[in-house]
């Protein structure tokens, strides 16, 4: 289904470091402990008016707390989320310069919304913001902050964007186009996207309950997550793990809803496994997309069961969207980090909000409390508007 394997094994791509900014933590350690302890990242939205919407809560970051010189960063929330995550990544990497020549340092970011809030502000009377409304503007803002003069790429495969960015970043290293790639995803909570999902009746008035029989929709969140990628032979001993495979596929079914059989996400998973030279039997953990919409979860669960085969009911699966909502373009990059940290710490975070498992989601969801398992090989799945599907296969160090 995914086509023949490449003639030669693709070069392994190491993840040297990572950084995050989320509603439950603005550094890797706080984020991880928040996931394990069940920190609540959902709150009433305060940054823009929501009184006219059915749902006025989400995973909002109330204040950016990192000690960044914000005078050097454009007054654009999307760019600032990226810079916050990059600042954490630089701390985690232990070097402000990221140890690469500026011309050989690339930036690849994924987003569903780009700088759309700047477009809202421009149309309200700040036309100088218009240039920042183009979806690739925040990525260039991040590159300037990092001092990167290598390729700057923005991808937008909706809510699968973070995974696409990691796949393209890895390919860039394999082709020798850069020596280090800062890759990941971001998106902000803004009125534009809240209005959109609210109008579609996709948002829940309850809590987010992935794979739960009472699930009634998603909540939106915001954040950014960045990973520092290098060719494994040049990465040195300090690393979080390895990006083994990436795959994508189109549903060609509906403009907004996933394919009813999950065939697109299944093809993406099989393609990622093929690139990783892995079989489903190698998978120890699945970080699922798990949006908690009535439609997504059983479709995704069925696709996972088909891919995982006989082991389908025994491989632990979680979704972190109960903790701080669906971070859209950031989600897949955040979930890739969850895969890496689960292997490092020997813990799989529980699926917050899951209380009564849906029989139609016949998978082993981690529920109630973190599970003491140390996954070596993890799978991360992502689905988005426009029939976008992507999957990553990740090995923990």
């Amino acid at each position, binding site marked *: 289904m995914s086509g023949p*394997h490449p003639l030669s094994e693709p070069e392994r791509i190491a993840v040297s470091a990572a950084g995050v900014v989320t509603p439950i933590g603005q550094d890797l350690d706080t984020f991880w402990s928040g996931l394990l302890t069940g920190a609540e990242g959902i709150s009433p939205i305060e940054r823009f008016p929501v009184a006219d919407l059915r749902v006025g809560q989400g995973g909002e970051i109330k204040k950016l707390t990192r000690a960044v010189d914000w005078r050097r960063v454009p007054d654009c929330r999307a760019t600032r989320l990226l810079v916050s995550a990059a600042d954490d990544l630089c701390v985690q990497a232990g070097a402000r310069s990221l140890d690469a020549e500026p011309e050989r340092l690339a930036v690849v970011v994924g987003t569903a919304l780009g700088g759309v809030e700047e477009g809202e502000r421009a149309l309200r009377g700040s036309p100088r913001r218009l240039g920042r409304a183009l*979806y690739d503007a925040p990525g260039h803002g991040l590159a300037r902050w990092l001092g990167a003069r290598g390729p700057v790429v923005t*991808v937008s495969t909706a809510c699968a964007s973070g995974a696409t960015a990691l796949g393209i970043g890895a390919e860039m290293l394999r082709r020798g186009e850069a020596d280090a790639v800062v890759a990941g995803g971001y998106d902000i909570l803004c009125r534009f996207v809240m209005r959109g999902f609210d*109008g579609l009746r996709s948002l829940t008035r309850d809590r987010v309950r992935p794979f739960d029989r009472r699930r009634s929709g998603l909540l939106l969140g915001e954040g950014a997550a960045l990973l520092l990628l290098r060719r494994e032979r040049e990465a040195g001993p300090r690393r979080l793990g390895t990006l083994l495979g990436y795959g994508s*596929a*189109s549903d060609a079914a509906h403009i907004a809803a996933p394919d009813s059989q999950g065939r697109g996400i299944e093809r993406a998973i099989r393609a990622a496994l093929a690139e990783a030279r892995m079989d489903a039997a190698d998978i120890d953990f699945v970080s699922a997309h798990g949006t908690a919409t009535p439609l997504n979860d059983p479709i995704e669960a069925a696709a996972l069961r088909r891919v995982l085969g006989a082991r389908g009911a025994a491989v632990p699966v979680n979704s972190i969207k109960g903790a701080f909502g669906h971070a859209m373009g950031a989600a897949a990059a955040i979930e890739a980090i969850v895969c890496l940290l689960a292997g490092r710490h020997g813990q799989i975070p529980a699926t917050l909000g899951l209380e009564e498992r849906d029989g139609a989601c016949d998978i082993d969801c981690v529920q109630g409390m973190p599970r003491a398992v140390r996954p070596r090989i993890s799978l991360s799945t992502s689905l988005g508007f426009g029939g976008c599907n992507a999957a990553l296969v990740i090995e923990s160090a």
Partner: protein
Amino acid sequence: MRAPAIRAIGLLSGWGKGAAALPLDASRAAGGRPVLAVERPSLDPDRFRRSRRECLMGVAAVGAMLEDAGTGPEAIAGERTALLFATAAAYAPSNREFIEARGGSMYFPYTAVAAVPAEVAIEFGLTGPYEILVGGAPATMRAIARAAALLEMGACDRALVLAVEVFDECADLFESLRPRFDGPLVEAAACLWLEPGEGTLTFERGRGLRNGGSVRRRVGEMLACEPLAALALAGESAGHEAMQVQGSWRGETARLEWSSTPYRTRPRAA
């Protein structure tokens, strides 16, 4: 990397259909018009009742590509066809409309960058690898290089590189960005059909590379569609061997170079 061969190109632009419609000097041909628009393609009004003009342009560009190839949709349907989409700003009109609260919430999914390739994938049954890049000409050139990589690794048998740009609904907004653009803004939709080929493809980019800008002077500002217009133009002239396409955006210039002609059959008009 191994070079992909070009099986066909479809091009629609504010100048008309195909490379033959492109002028020799865009500024002169525009005669002071800031935007040259493409009319909403007349496709099945029921099937596309909610679709936006930019989506229909994408579908029509693939149709023109199939016409150029002399084949039907069945030749590209299925999971062995990759679809790579590039645009700098095709989402701008839908975003503006939604911000200004025109149109209902059911149109919200059409604000996504993915809306254009989604309609194309649905219309032609394209279920293979699927990637979307945002940016000007270098994004499209990267999409071509990415298509070459997917072909080389056997992830697909053919790859379509689609680019769409629309300006008309946001002409007033683009006017304020005018210093960034050369010549008139020319709406376009173009699709390139790539298959495994011979020779090598080199993709390079940098801030020091010189961009001659000759194609842009000729066709106008097409942003992500410019490299595909350049390939359509090059396909019209006979006898070339190695060929090169370049383009720039946000201070970065990218260059694609085929070591031998990528045109599989005769030089073709798009």
